[in-house]
Every structure is written in structure tokens, then in C-alpha cells.
């Protein structure tokens, strides 16, 4: 939900709707159904999560047991080894899975941009993992990655490797990364594909006349024209990778040990297993602000690049 807004926000702000004769309250009536729902189910929860972050409250103490504790939650977060461990894991997860997904998606997008037999079918196949629910995917991979008899290790046996995957605290995170890449590559390739189709054709023709190599054409023409798309994908995938907890809740429950307790799962655990609503809200808020800052930095980097070119 978040990412589309991020992507369209800059475009939306600049173009205002042209002035139309005022119709007073009628327009408001059109918006009212949506607005009331958004207030009830998004705005009020949003304000609440900010308020809750400054309270000490758990399910057991009931509504009456809610007490404001100032910035205690944030001080506690700063000293919470569990929080920093989760942040570290999330960084590893994001830093490994996101760039790999984007690079592979780019390669696949370029390959699929050439005319070849069965292209539409190929596109659909790579996209398929993206539209399937996380439980079906998770259950399947859990069995595929069975350390003893799973298909993945049957194949890897040929190379003499036998990872423990979800049974091993070293291999559980890599297993999640493999799944993330498998699930995201097709999506990235489709986004790149639609960007490639808008690439400036005359530039390629000019480059051909100048006898430019394929690599030179990629570096000078293709890559710069794909930069906004790349930024968009990075932002989308970073947000997705740092917020989702469904797969982890399903397959590993953060384990073995705490080897897959990423920040989103840590928040889920704090909120819905230990019912520490105040602390969970503070964790969510800190994470959200962190991701927001990261996103804005990525954006500014892109603006800087665009200006230099």
C-alpha cells in the first residue's frame, strides 16, 4: 500500500486539478463514504499508534491500566539487544535480497525484451510466484527445503552441499532470501520490461551509427533511462522486506533460536504474543521512521543523479 503512494506522490503534488466552478458541499458528499472509512480505520489507528508508543500498556492490565511513560519505550528500545539483533538481521536480509532481486530482474527484463518464441508465456511463468498467497508458497518451500529429503537438497547433493535450511540457525535466513528472490524477480522484470519499452529508440540508432558496443549502449543509454525504475523498485522492495512478517510467522516463528527474528516479526511477537502494545507500537514507529528516512535518502540520491546528467 505504502509504495504506490510514494511512487505517485511527487507526480500528484505538482499537477493540481484545474479550477472548476465551486459546487460547495456536493463534492464533499462524494468523498464522505471513503473519508469516514479512512478516518475510522486508518487515521484513528494511526494517531493511536503514536499515542500508544508513549505508554506502558499490555492486554492483561485492560484499558484502565494504560499509563503514559514518556519516552521510556524509546529509551528501552535503544538498550534492547533483541531490537538491535532484529535490526541487524533485517539489514542483512534487505541488503542481500533486494539488490539480488533487482539485478536478476533487470537481466531477465532485458532478456525478455527481445523477440523470442513464447515470450508471453515466459513472462507469466516468472510472474506467477508474485500472485500466490504466502501460505501456499511457504508450505511448499518448507517441504522443498527439507534438509534430509527435500528436492532442493537432492539437487544440491550433486555439488556435495547439504544445507540445513529452516532447521539450522545459519541457513534459515539464507532460505528466506532464496524465497524472496524467487518471489520478486518476475515482478521486477515486468516493471523493467515496461520501462524498457519506453526507452529512447533514436539514441540507440544514433549509437549504432557511431559503432557503440552493446555494453556502452547499456551503460550510457539503457541504465540512465532505467534509473527512476530502479529507485522505485528499491524503495518498494525495501519497504516490503522490512514490513512483512507473514512468512516468518508461518515457517520459522523467528527461529531456530532468534536467527530469523527480523524487526517486523519482533514487533509482531511483542504485540501479539506478549501483548505489550505500548512497546510494540514504539518499535513499529521507530522502524517506520527509519524506513521513511531511508526512502527519502534514496530519493534525494536519485534527484542528485538526475541533475548531474
Amino acid at each position, binding site marked *: *500500500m*505504502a509504495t*504506490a503512494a*510514494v*511512487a505517485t*506522490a511527487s507526480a500528484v*503534488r505538482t499537477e493540481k*486539478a484545474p479550477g*472548476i466552478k465551486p*459546487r460547495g458541499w*456536493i*463534492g*464533499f458528499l462524494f*468523498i464522505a463514504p*471513503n473519508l*469516514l*472509512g*479512512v478516518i*475510522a*480505520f486508518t487515521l*484513528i*489507528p*494511526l494517531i493511536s*499508534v503514536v499515542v*500508544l508508543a508513549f505508554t506502558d500498556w499490555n492486554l492483561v492490565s485492560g484499558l484502565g491500566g494504560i499509563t503514559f511513560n514518556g519516552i521510556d519505550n524509546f529509551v528501552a528500545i535503544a538498550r534492547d539487544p533483541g531490537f538491535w539483533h532484529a535490526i541487524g538481521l533485517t539489514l542483512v536480509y534487505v541488503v542481500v535480497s533486494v539488490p539480488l532481486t533487482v539485478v536478476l530482474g533487470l537481466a531477465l527484463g532485458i532478456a525478455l525484451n*527481445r523477440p*523470442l*518464441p513464447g515470450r508471453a508465456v*515466459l513472462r507469466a511463468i516468472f*510472474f506467477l*510466484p*508474485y*500472485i500466490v*498467497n*504466502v*501460505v*501456499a508458497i511457504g*508450505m*511448499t*518451500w*518448507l*517441504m522443498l527445503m527439507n534438509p534430509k*529429503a527435500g*528436492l532442493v537438497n*537432492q539437487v544440491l547433493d550433486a555439488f556435495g552441499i547439504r544445507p540445513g535450511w529452516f532447521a539450522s540457525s545459519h541457513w534459515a535466513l539464507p532460505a528466506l532470501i532464496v524465497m524472496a528472490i524467487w518471489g520478486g524477480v*518476475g515482478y521486477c522484470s*515486468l516493471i523493467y520490461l515496461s520501462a524498457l519499452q519506453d526507452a529512447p529508440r533514436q539514441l540507440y540508432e544514433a549509437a549504432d551509427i557511431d559503432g557503440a558496443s552493446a555494453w556502452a549502449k547499456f551503460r550510457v543509454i539503457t541504465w540512465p533511462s532505467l534509473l527512476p525504475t530502479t529507485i522505485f523498485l528499491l524503495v518498494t522492495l525495501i519497504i516490503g522486506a522490512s514490513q512483512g*512478517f*507473514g512468512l516468518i*510467522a508461518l515457517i520459522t516463528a523467528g527461529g531456530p533460536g532468534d536467527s530469523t527474528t527480523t524487526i*517486523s516479526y519482533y514487533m509482531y511477537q511483542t*504485540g*501479539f504474543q506478549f501483548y505489550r*502494545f505500548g512497546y*510494540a*507500537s514504539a518499535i513499529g*514507529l521507530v522502524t*517506520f521512521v527509519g*524506513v*521513511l528516512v531511508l526512502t527519502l535518502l534514496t530519493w534525494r540520491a536519485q534527484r542528485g543523479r538526475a541533475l548531474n546528467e
Partner: protein
Amino acid sequence: MSKKWWWGIPLWILALAFLAPFAWMISTALKPDVDAYKIPMQWIPNPFQWDNFTTVLTGATSVLPAFGRSIFVAVLRVAGELITATMAGYAFARMSFKGRDKLFLLYLATAIIPAQLLLVPRFIYFQKLGLYDTLWALILPGMFTVLGTFLMRQFFISQPAEFAEAARMDGANEWRVFTRIYLPLATPVMSALGILAFVWSWNDYETPLVLISNPDRYTLPLSLTNFVDEQGQIAPGLTMAASVISIVPVLIVFVVLQRRFIAAMTHTGIK
């Protein structure tokens, strides 16, 4: 074209690797559990059997009720979102009223909030409202979305304002201008939004995981975990048969509306 056909070979090999988990899913759904982990992997089930599907559909832990609930939730969410988002998006784009642009900025600001951040307060509110552990906890937030409103506003703003001016001159009221002139133009965007809303709703696992606890109210993704025992042992055949069933509706929408489906997904970046 024919000159470069060999490009396809590595791509097809890669595609088969991508498909392997789905092939495994179908193969396992059609064989007895003892064969699920056979070494080497047996792709074609022998004996071939439909029992897993029969059990999953008609047995004591049938997923059919959950399937029905998922349909119910999805239909209401899609209908609600289409109605409220289309009206609001239209008004934001093509009507004028006090505070419109400020309100729209507020919408923009809330749109970057990840749904996961709102789960704690929603959990609390729905308990207070008596909606916790009911399907309405899944349906209501999905009916009023900021994102849908965006998509619709972006569409309506690209449509000429003169249509409305002309119709108003002829004495049409605002509702008529909207339903007779602009709404028919919006069908492709609405179908894209409908597809998106359906897929979100159908695949949503995190929201019901937090807001639904009674197995009698599980939606389909939650019910796929019915075939895991207390020790965490998965019944391969039953789980995979149920998984196949859970994919079918999305797959049908995908195959039938492939172009629109891909356009919807790629233009919004939403899962």
C-alpha cells in the same frame, strides 16, 4: 526474429526452475504421503490418486467453508473499495469544494503508512467494537482505501473537464454528470483496481493472522495450516492439495485478464 531464437533456451531452463515448486506442489497433491519425500523425486505420481483433494474438499477439516469466507470477504472488499474510491477519486479530481486540496494532501500522507503499523491499534479497536474475530475486521478496512482513491483520482484528472461543463450547462446535476459521463469512461481503471483489490484480499494472511482466532472463521490462507499437527509435522498431500485450491481463483483471474492484471500490478507496485 528467428535469428535470435536460441536466446530462449536459457530462459526456458530458468523458467522451468521457477515452475518447479508449483510442479512439486501439484505432484505432491496427487500422490500418497509416503511418496512425498522419495529420493530421487518422483515427478509423475505413481499411484496417481485424487484422495487428497477429496479429503480437503469433503473431509472433517474441509477448506470449502474457508473458501466461501474468502470469497465473501473479497466480494465485499472489492465492491466497497470500487464504490467509495471511484466516488472520492472523482470528487478529488473533478469537483470543487472547500479544503479539497488540503484533504488530498492528508490522504497522501496516510498512504505511506504500512498496514503492519496499524495492526496493534486495529486489534484493540476491533475488540472494543466487538468486531475482533469476525470477518468484518477484514472487510471494513479494505472497503475504504486511500490507494484506490489515488488511482481513481489519477485517472479522472486525465479526463477532459469540458464534458462536465457542457453537461452542467444542459442542466445535469452532479450525480448525473458523474454516473452518465465519467463513470463509463472509467471501466478499464475500475477493473484494474478490482483485480488488485481481489488479489490483496484473497492472499492476505497477516491481517487474519492477527484479527481472527476462531478456526471457524479462518479465511483460506489461514485454513491451509489446518493440515499441520501439534508437532509441526505437515501432511504433505493434504496441504498441497489445499494450496492448489487456494491458487486456482487468482490463477483464473490472471489467465483470463492477463494484460489488465499485469498492467494493474506494474502500475501500482502493490502486492
